[in-house]
Every structure is written in structure tokens, then in C-alpha cells.
């Protein structure tokens, strides 16, 4: 299978300048390769650095050491140290991220929140909105909510909006942070189906799944992150 994502010797620590320059190492020497069609579950105890690794891959955390290469537009690009504009281009076309929290502009309607990644890629707004609606319907979000901004929705509803947005564009590489948390059985099933379909079309997926059944159902492999000795 074709590799889509290659992490080599990735290390990360945080230096807290306003707390006496304390240095917190969170991740050391992470190596991971993910091929098209694979779904790799990050495992390890809480605080081991699973979410940190996801953010390093997405680029909202800076990588101290190592490389994070993504196959993008037919070539490889190392996101560690890449120009911000290059990171944005990779995020637009190649790298999707379903985080645990939805961060949106206050007044934007749910339908547009979901359609935005496709519109950003140049699709006609009407077509992008149609795709958004079919995803929202599939995730059982009542159509009466589509015109409303998701800010006032319940946790489970927001999570489904977030998932719909993350799956609106068929990203070749996808990061999923607890995609089934706060969902009921039926919606959990829909999300697992979406993940299976993404694998079938050749997406490389990295995810955090506390739900062991969900993990067992969709993940092809696990990658354990051992906590670092904080005293070091």
C-alpha cells in the first residue's frame, strides 16, 4: 500500500516562559507510517501525548525535532517547519481534522459550516450545500437545525456537525479525535460507516478512540504512545 503519512523521530516539549522557563517534554521519538486505507488508533494513558501528536500532524503545534511528511498533490511535504501557506494548502486539500470541539464563527448556519471546506476548494456553493445536507441528514441532524448556527446545539449535535464538516471533502489523510464520543448508538454506527467508506476510498486515518468497540470495529492497527517521565 502507498504511504500517505510518515512521522520520523518526532519530539515535542513545551517551554513555559512565564513559569520560570519550566520545560515539559510530552513526546519523544515518535515513528509512524500510515498507508492509504489504514486506520491507526493512537493508544496510551490519558496525558501520554495522543492529542499532542494529532496537533503536531495538523500543524497547530510546532514540531521541535523530527519530520512529519504528508503526501500532497503527488509529492511529499514535510509539515515540520513548512511555511504557513504550505501548511494551509495541505489542510485545504489533503489533511482533514475532526477535533473534539467545534470552533466556528458565531452567526454562520450549520449547513454553511459543513459546506465551507468544499466551497474553499472552489465548488459551487449550491453543490457544496447539497453535499452538506446529505451528510447532516445521514447523521440524523434534524433539518430544522440546518439554518441555525451550531453554537447553541447540544454536545452530541455539535459533534455531528463537526464530523459532517470533517467528512464533507474526501481528504486523503484524516485525523479523528474521539469521533464517537457523546454520540448515541445509531449515530455512532453512522460515523463508523463513514470511517469505513473513507478507508475504502483510500484515506489514511489516524484516530483517538476511547470507545474500545469503535476502535476494534474500524482500526486496522494500534500505535501506543508511552508517557514520558515528566521528572526528566
Amino acid at each position, binding site marked *: 500500500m502507498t504511504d500517505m503519512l510518515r512521522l520520523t523521530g518526532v519530539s515535542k516539549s513545551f517551554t513555559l516562559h512565564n513559569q520560570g522557563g519550566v520545560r515539559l517534554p510530552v513526546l519523544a521519538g515518535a515513528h509512524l507510517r500510515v498507508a492509504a486505507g489504514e486506520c491507526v488508533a493512537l493508544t496510551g494513558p490519558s496525558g501520554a501525548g495522543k492529542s499532542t501528536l494529532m496537533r503536531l500532524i495538523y500543524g497547530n503545534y510546532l514540531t521541535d525535532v523530527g519530520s512529519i511528511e504528508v503526501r500532497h498533490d*503527488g509529492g511529499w511535504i514535510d509539515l515540520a517547519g513548512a511555511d504557513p501557506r504550505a501548511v494551509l494548502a495541505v489542510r485545504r486539500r489533503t489533511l482533514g481534522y475532526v477535533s473534539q470541539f467545534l470552533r466556528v464563527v458565531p452567526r454562520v448556519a450549520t449547513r454553511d459550516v459543513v459546506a465551507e471546506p468544499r466551497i474553499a476548494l472552489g465548488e459551487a456553493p449550491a453543490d457544496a450545500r447539497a453535499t452538506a445536507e446529505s451528510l447532516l441528514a445521514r447523521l440524523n441532524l434534524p433539518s430544522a437545525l440546518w439554518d441555525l448556527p451550531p453554537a447553541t446545539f447540544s454536545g452530541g449535535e455539535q459533534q455531528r456537525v463537526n464530523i459532517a464538516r470533517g467528512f464533507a471533502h474526501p481528504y486523503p489523510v484524516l485525523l479523528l479525535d474521539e469521533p464517537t464520543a457523546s454520540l448515541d448508538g445509531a449515530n455512532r454506527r453512522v460515523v463508523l460507516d463513514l470511517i469505513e467508506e473513507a478507508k475504502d476510498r483510500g484515506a489514511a486515518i489516524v484516530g483517538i478512540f476511547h470507545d474500545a468497540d469503535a476502535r476494534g470495529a474500524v482500526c486496522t492497527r494500534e500505535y501506543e504512545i508511552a508517557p514520558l517521565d515528566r521528572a526528566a
Partner: protein
Amino acid sequence: MNAVQDDDAPLLAVEGLEKRYGRRVGCTQVDFRLWPGEVLGVVGESGSGKTTVLNCVAGRLAPDAGRVLYTDRTGAARDVHGVSEPERRMLMRTDWAFVHQNARDGLRMAVSAGANVGEPLMAVGARHYADIRAAAGDWLEKTEIELGRIDDPPTTFSGGMQQRLQIARALVAGPRLVFMDEPTGGLDVSVQARLLDLLRGLVTELGLAAVVVTHDLAVARLLSHRLLVMRQGRVVETGLTDQVLDDPQHPYTQLLVSSVLQP
């Protein structure tokens, strides 16, 4: 080995910009580039030099050192402070727009809303009254101002409406580059949200490049692709907006980010 090519020309290249007010440093050693379609946020507290940078880059204030190069529609690089005053004024009319924190600084308060929006079109040569009025009406609609208010002067508008009218006036002539100084400052939170949504939509829809000065990190996060963090006249950190805010590297940025109240 990076597959993403960077050979397209930046719209704006700022090199070694410095401005002094007597012995006090307004800004120094400021360098950045801005590409078409990109929104750059400039953050920092009051007195950090962010407005000085904005005014120098926008051609409103002459720097003491450094230069600002603007790539015009023909692809030629123009030295913003090197060209003649009439040339600079022409650029400001045809290619650039400026949105002030205080709407009154960007509007003519004594004339109607329609005239405020129509004027920039006449300044670039539009002569046909019906066309100008239609375009003004169009922009009032885009900025969510009722068409019925077209003949009212902005003095009769609320603060949020005045700010939206200023945006309509700034964008009506089709600029490529917009400078904004605290565009949501001084507005109620609910009004801010509406304006932010509007600005974000217009910038994306029109493919505008923008430099946005704000002290509000939430505004910076929602509007800008990249950030420049300023302190005491210098740029202390730059990067992708969410990276600078989620993983700030400089002690000052860390302090700034950790000082924000979370509602």
C-alpha cells in the same frame, strides 16, 4: 523536497520597516509578505506599534527606514513610499481600502449612505448616476443595510450599521488589498459577531488580501490565516494563526494568550 511551490509573487513585501517618533520607536525591523487572498493579523497590546505598522504599510505614514513594495495589477512592483504623492493616492483609490476603528473616520457623516458608497466609484471614473446608485444599493444589501436607508445620513445609523457602511464604502470600488484597524473595536459583542461573519464572508468571496490590526485574539483567530505578534515596536513571533495561539513560542505571546479570559 517540499512539493508546495512558492513562486507566485507576493502582493505586498515589507522590508526593514522602521518609524520613530522623536526618540521613541514606533516600529523597527518589521518584515513580512502578504499574498493574494491571504489575511494577516497583527496582534499586540496598545502601544506595541501595530497601528504604526499598518499606517506605514498602507502609505498613510512615511517610514524612517525600510520599504513597502506593492505588486500592482500589471505585475510591476511599486515602492509605496518611493512613488509620487498623486501616484500613491491613485493606488489608494483603485487598489487599496482602509477600514478605520471609528466608522466616522472612514465615512462622510453629512451625506447619505448611498452617496458614501457611490463616491469611491465616482473617484475611479464612474459617471452614470443610475449605475452608481444600483451599485450602492447592491453593497448596502451585501453589508446588510436595508435599502430603505439609502438616502439617510450615517448620523442616523447605529454603531454597527455605521461600521458596515464603512465596509461597503471601502470595498465598493473593488480593491485588492484591505487594511483594517481594529474593525470590531468599540462594538457590542453581538454586533461584533455579525461584522466578523460579514468580513470573513466578503474577504473569502472577493479573494481579498487583508492586513487586520486587532488586540482581540479571538477576532484574529477567526479572520486571519497568519499572525504577526508585536511588542515594543518589534515583531516577536510570526506563524500560522492557530499555531501561534495554540503553541506560542515567545514569552510575550505566551503571556498574551494565557491572559485571555475564557467565557
